[in-house]
């Protein structure tokens, strides 16, 4: 009874129910939505968001936010792409090292600005959002890396694999999800991120290394953006200085917030975020099928963020009320 109840009140259950209802509703109207092929479409749509969302979740749990993920994705993808184009003699898997390394460095810079100068992450990353995008233009001389330069082995990772022909990119996203789950649930530092976000001053008193952890979450967010960057090259076959990753931050934040991660820090689960990303993927795949013009998508993302905020607030409120009672 208690177990049933606790499952029912969980945020993840709510999102899962929403996904099922959405799919059924769309499926009633357009039966082709409930096909294996459509599942493939959705699963191919979400891996990049999924990968970046896991990093963003850690940042949000630690009471920060990272708006620069799209630009980090773009810059690291560009660096890897330029390596493919200008240094074809280097084996292509090195591109992963380049992209992830570049992303990690950019994330580390975000983290350093936040910790060293004690600046609010939202302003810092608003600045680096533009800074990194500008750097992308500068390093690339504003030129796109064309499809022919992206190694076909890399491109095929988004198309197939020996395992039932399910593309590698899906396994990769799944791997990152599992890794994130293990990290947040089963490592000391993972739990310390939650402790830090839950009560920063208490965390400091309890000897949690606040600065190091802040650096770590931003670096992870950057590294995962870098991974998503090279997978962008794999998925779409090109890297463009202005389009690649542009506006990505809104999708990612929408997914993470709807997945139940609190903007006040300390709260969030990997399964929740995963379901949040999938829900967004279902919406994105359903819209064209239903003939809803793409122009509505911006408004839908905005509305989703606000609704998620309201849900977060009503969930929090009970907790806050009980806290206030004992304080004061």
């Amino acid at each position, binding site marked *: 009874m208690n177990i049933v109840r606790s499952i029912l009140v969980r945020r993840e259950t709510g999102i899962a129910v929403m996904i099922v209802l959405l799919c059924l509703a769309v499926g009633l109207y*357009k039966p*082709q*939505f409930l*096909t294996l*092929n*459509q599942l493939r*479409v959705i699963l*191919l*749509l979400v891996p990049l968001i999924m990968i970046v969302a896991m990093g963003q979740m850690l940042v949000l749990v630690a009471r920060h936010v990272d708006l620069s993920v799209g630009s980090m994705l773009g810059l690291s993808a560009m660096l890897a792409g330029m390596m493919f184009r200008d240094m074809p003699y280097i084996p292509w898997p090195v591109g992963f090292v380049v992209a992830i390394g570049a992303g990690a460095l950019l994330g580390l810079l975000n983290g350093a600005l936040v910790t060293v100068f004690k600046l609010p992450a939202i302003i810092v990353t608003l600045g680096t959002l533009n800074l990194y*995008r500008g750097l992308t*233009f500068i390093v*690339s001389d*504003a*030129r*796109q890396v*064309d*499809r*022919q330069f992206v190694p*076909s082995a890399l491109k095929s990772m*988004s*198309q197939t694999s020996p395992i039932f022909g399910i593309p590698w990119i899906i396994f990769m996203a799944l791997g990152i999800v599992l890794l994130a789950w293990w990290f947040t649930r089963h490592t000391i530092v993972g739990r310390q991120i939650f402790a830090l976000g839950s009560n920063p001053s208490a965390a400091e008193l309890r000897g949690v290394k606040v600065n190091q952890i802040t650096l770590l979450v931003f670096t992870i967010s950057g590294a995962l953006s870098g991974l998503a960057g090279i997978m962008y090259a794999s998925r*779409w*076959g*090109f890297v*463009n*200085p*202005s*389009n690649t990753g542009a506006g990505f931050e809104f999708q990612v934040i929408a997914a993470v917030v709807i997945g139940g991660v609190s903007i006040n820090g300390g709260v969030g689960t990997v399964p929740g975020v995963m379901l949040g990303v999938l829900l967004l993927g279902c919406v*994105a*795949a359903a*819209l*064209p*099928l239903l003939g809803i*013009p*793409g*122009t509505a*998508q911006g408004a839908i993302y905005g509305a989703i963020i606000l609704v998620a905020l309201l849900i977060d607030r009503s969930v929090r409120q009970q907790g806050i009320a009980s806290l206030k009672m004992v304080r004061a």
Partner: protein
Amino acid sequence: MLKKSLIALATGLALSTAAFAQDKIDIVFIGKNTGNPYFDSLTKGFVEACEKIACNFEFVAPATAEATSQIPFIEAQIQRGVDVIAISPNSPDALNQVFDAARAKGIIVMTVNGDITGNESHRDLTILPTDFTKVGADQVEMVGSLIGYDGEIAILSATTEAPDQNFWIKGMSEAIKDPKYAKMKLVATVYGDDQPEKSTTEMEALLSNYPDLKGVIAPTTVGVAAAAQVVQSRGIADKVKVTGLGLPSEMRDFVKDGTVEAFQLWSPYNEGWLAAHLAVDLKAGKAKNEVGSTFEVPNLGTITINEGNSINTQSSLTTFNAENIDQFDF
């Protein structure tokens, strides 16, 4: 006597160098946005023309292709006092005021590769890559030949209001009424907003909604690449034929692996080449910006200024396929 002629010679030299310097006109081309591979080739046309004839060329472009982002760049060129502004406009009407200001200063404003439809009076002339009235028909013929003139076809376009694409789509729906295409049916027109992600989901939705689909026309470079990728990834290249307007550099792989048999475009290079020559000739008085007047451009021959002060660099689309694609370096 000798002395006098020496002086004359000297002044003549001085005059002629000064005149030479003055003769070199300043052309600037303002692209839709930076990082757009299409403009690399177009810019190359300008650059190579200006290496041969008397012009200085610069390329600038805003970071985003948003309606107003080109305005500060045009203002800056007015301030710099350039002679010719060539521009691929991001908006059919938001630039009217600043174009007027430029023309009031005696600057020639030419739109290149796209026009400000409905506001033609605010620019001097337009250079279009081909005769846009024929694009629709050409594309329908292309897809028809690929699917054996039988079956359902659909269009994957850019944005709902993209003026050029809409003009071509109108041409397609006119052309398909031809009895030759009686067995072909245009079942849907969808819009991918020139974003790879959106174009992909729209293409996937097309395939789901119309299982009998035989052909897709994507008259936009982003759309045709995204559509090709969907077909490639689903492995249905033999069932669904994708064609449209694409850049060889972006389509090469798809053509080589058989995903796409053929697609079309024109030469962006020639647009730049022609624009530079025309600009110099206009400033030198060798050509007149009047409907019906003609002028010579090396490699392109005699060019005529058509109705509405518009010029086409080539009369019909170039078709790219496995045989010829490696001959193009853009």
